[in-house]
C-alpha cells in the first residue's frame, strides 16, 4: 500500500467468529459472527470514531486491534508492523505504541495498588529504567491529565469516577503511544465530568499528536471528538466518512435512523421520524444479502439477494447500501 507509512493503524478484512457450544451431539456447532471483514485506516494524529448498537462488534474490534485475542483472518498493522499471528512475547515490545482506555473506571484500576504503581505499570514493556526516570514520567503524565504529583500515593477508591478515568488515560499515555484505543471511555461518567474528560482527550491530542480509535454508542460525543466515523452493524462497517459529511448527509438508512433516534434537548416535542423496529439479531447466522435487511424501511428484493459492498459516494465517504443515491436525494421513505 502506498499510503501505508502515514497510517498509524491499518486494518484489513478482519474476521472474528466465536464458536458457540454444541446444541446437540449431531449438530455442527453454531457461531457468533462478530466481525465479518472490517477494513479501515487511521491517519496519524486523527480521531477515528466507531459507532453502533450493542452486539454490532465494536468491542470485539477493539480487542482484536489491541491483539488481546486471536483473530480468525485479516491483518492489523500498527505503524506498519503486523500484530496478527504474533506471540505474546513478540508483541510485548510493540505494546508501548498502542494502549487502551476501558469503559468502566471502577473495574479497570487495581484497587490494591496506589496510583503511582498503576500508572507506571506499562513502563515494564519499555525494559529496565531507573527509579528517577520512572518517578519523573509518572509525575509528568499525571500533571498532563490534570492530577497532582501527590495523587500518586493515593489509591483508586479515593478518587471520583472522572478522576479515575483521568488515571486510566494517564496509564495509557505514559509510554508515549502513537495509538490509544478507547472503548466507551465516557459512557459511565456524568454529563459535567464527561465534558471535562472529552476536552482533556482533545487537549492531549493537540499536545502529543496521539491518534485515537474511539468507540462509543453516543453519536453526539463522536461528532464532538472524531475526524472520521465508521458505523457498524452486525460485524460490518456499513458507512464510513469524514464526520461532517457523514452526519450532514448519511448515505445508509441505518446511520440515518441512528441519528434520528438521539433525543435532543430543547425541541420540547418529539420530532417526526422513522423508527426502527426490533433488535439487533442475526449475529449467529450467515445470510445472503444485506445485513440490515430485516429492519430496513427501504428494503427491496435486491437487498435479500445481493450483499451491498462499501461504495464510494463522495470524497472519503463510503456506504454499503444499494440505494444510497436514492436516500441522499429523497430521504427515508417507508
Amino acid at each position, binding site marked *: 500500500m502506498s499510503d501505508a507509512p502515514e497510517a498509524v493503524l491499518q486494518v484489513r478484512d478482519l474476521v472474528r467468529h466465536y464458536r458457540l457450544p454444541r446444541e446437540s451431539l449431531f449438530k455442527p456447532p453454531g457461531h457468533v459472527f462478530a466481525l465479518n471483514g472490517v477494513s479501515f485506516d487511521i491517519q496519524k494524529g486523527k480521531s477515528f470514531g466507531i459507532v453502533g448498537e450493542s452486539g454490532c462488534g465494536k468491542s470485539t474490534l477493539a480487542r482484536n486491534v489491541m491483539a488481546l485475542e486471536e483473530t480468525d483472518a485479516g491483518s492489523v498493522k500498527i505503524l506498519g508492523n503486523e500484530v496478527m499471528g504474533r506471540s505474546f512475547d513478540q508483541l510485548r515490545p510493540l505494546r508501548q505504541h498502542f494502549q487502551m482506555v476501558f469503559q468502566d473506571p471502577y473495574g479497570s484500576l487495581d484497587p490494591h495498588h496506589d496510583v503511582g504503581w498503576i500508572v507506571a505499570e506499562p513502563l515494564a514493556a519499555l525494559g529496565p529504567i531507573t527509579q528517577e526516570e520512572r518517578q519523573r514520567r509518572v509525575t509528568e503524565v499525571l500533571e498532563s491529565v490534570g492530577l497532582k504529583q501527590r495523587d500518586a500515593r493515593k489509591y483508586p477508591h479515593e478518587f471520583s469516577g472522572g478522576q479515575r478515568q483521568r488515571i486510566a488515560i494517564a496509564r495509557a499515555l505514559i509510554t508515549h503511544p502513537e495509538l490509544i484505543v478507547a472503548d466507551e471511555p465516557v459512557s459511565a461518567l456524568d454529563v459535567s465530568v464527561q465534558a471535562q474528560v472529552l476536552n482533556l482527550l482533545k487537549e492531549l491530542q493537540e499536545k502529543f499528536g496521539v491518534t485515537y480509535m474511539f468507540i462509543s454508542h453516543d*453519536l453526539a460525543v463522536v461528532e*464532538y471528538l472524531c475526524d472520521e466515523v465508521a458505523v457498524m452493524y452486525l460485524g460490518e462497517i456499513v458507512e464510513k466518512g469524514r464526520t461532517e459529511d457523514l452526519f450532514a448527509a448519511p448515505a445508509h438508512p441505518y446511520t440515518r435512523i441512528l441519528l434520528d433516534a438521539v433525543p*435532543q*434537548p430543547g425541541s420540547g416535542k418529539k420530532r417526526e421520524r422513522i423508527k426502527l423496529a426490533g433488535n439487533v439479531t442475526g449475529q449467529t447466522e450467515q445470510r445472503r444479502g444485506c445485513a440490515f435487511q430485516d429492519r430496513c424501511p427501504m428494503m427491496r428484493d435486491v437487498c435479500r439477494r445481493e450483499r451491498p459492498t462499501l461504495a464510494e459516494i463522495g470524497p472519503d465517504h463510503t456506504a454499503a447500501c444499494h440505494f444510497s443515491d436514492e436516500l441522499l436525494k429523497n430521504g427515508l421513505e417507508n
Partner: protein
Amino acid sequence: MTLLNVTDLSVTLSTADGAARAVRDLNFSLEKGQTLGIVGESGCGKSMTALALMGLLPEKSKTDGTIKFNNEDLLQKSEAEMCNLRGNRMAMIFQEPMTSLNPVHTVGRQVMEPLRLHKNMSKADAVAEAIKLLDRVGIPNASERLGNYPHQLSGGQRQRVMIALALSCAPDILIADEPTTALDVTIQDQILELIQSLVREEGMSLILISHDLGVISENTERIMVMYGGAAVETGPTETFFDALTHPYSQGLFAAMPKLGMGRTSRLMTIPGVVPDLINLPTGCTFTDRCPLATAECAKTTPPLRQLTAGHQVACHHLEEAREKRPEELFA
C-alpha cells in the same frame, strides 16, 4: 385535582461515615395526567426522591415532610397500607431491567403477581390479562413468552416486561427511574415512545428521572433540575431551555455534547465535583463550583423564587444569572 403533593421532603441516610442528606426540602406537585422530568447528575437525590415516594428507602433512613397522594399522607402509612398502594395505585420502573426482574421466576408469573395480589384475579383470568399486557407493550408471541425466564429475553424486552408489570393494575402514577439508560438509542426510542403512548391513553401521571436532558426534554411537560439533594430550577419544558437561569442548569446544558454542534466549538465544563452529601457545605451547595458565588451564597441557602409563571429558580444572583449565557459563566 392535585394527585401528588410533596412538601418539604427530606431524606437522611445514615451511613458508616455519618448522616448523608440525600434529599433536602423538596417541594413539587403533580396533577393527574401530568408528566414531570427530574434531571441531575449522580448523587443529586433524584433516585432517592423516587424511592421515598414509593416507600422503598433503605431501612437506615429518616424521611421528613409530607407526601400527599390523593390527599393521604404516604409517610404516615403503615407498611401493610403501602403494600396495598405499591404496584397498585403507584408503580415504578427501575433502571436495570437485568437485575430488577427475578431470575428464578417466569416472566408470566411476575406479571401475574400484582394482578393476583391487588385485583384478586383467578389464575385463568390473570393469565389472560398477562397475555394482553405483554401484547400491549409490544412483546411478540406473548402467550409463548409467559413461560420464559428473564435471561431468555433481550434488554429491551426485559424493560418492556417491567413496563407491563408496572401497568398491570393501571396505576395513577408511574415513576420511571432512568428506564432507558442501559439501552441502545434505537431501543431507547421504542421504550420511551411506548411509555408516552401508555401515559396518554391511560391518563396516568408520569415522573421520569434521567441524567439525559434530551430524554427529559422530549418526554415531559415540566422539568425539575436537582443538585446536591435540592431542586435548583423548575419550569415548563417548552420554554425551559430558552430560559435556563440557574448557573448549574446552564452549565449542565452547555456541558452536554449535542448533535450538530460540530468539532470546532468547545464543550463548557463545570469545574470541581458534586458535593459530598455527608459534609454538605452550608448555604448554596453549588457555591464552590459557581462563577457567580459571593460570600452570601456560602452563608444562606437561596429559596426557590418565582421568575415567570411556573418557572422557579433557587439562586441569590437571579438577575445576574439571567443575563449571563453559559459561555460567559464557564469560559
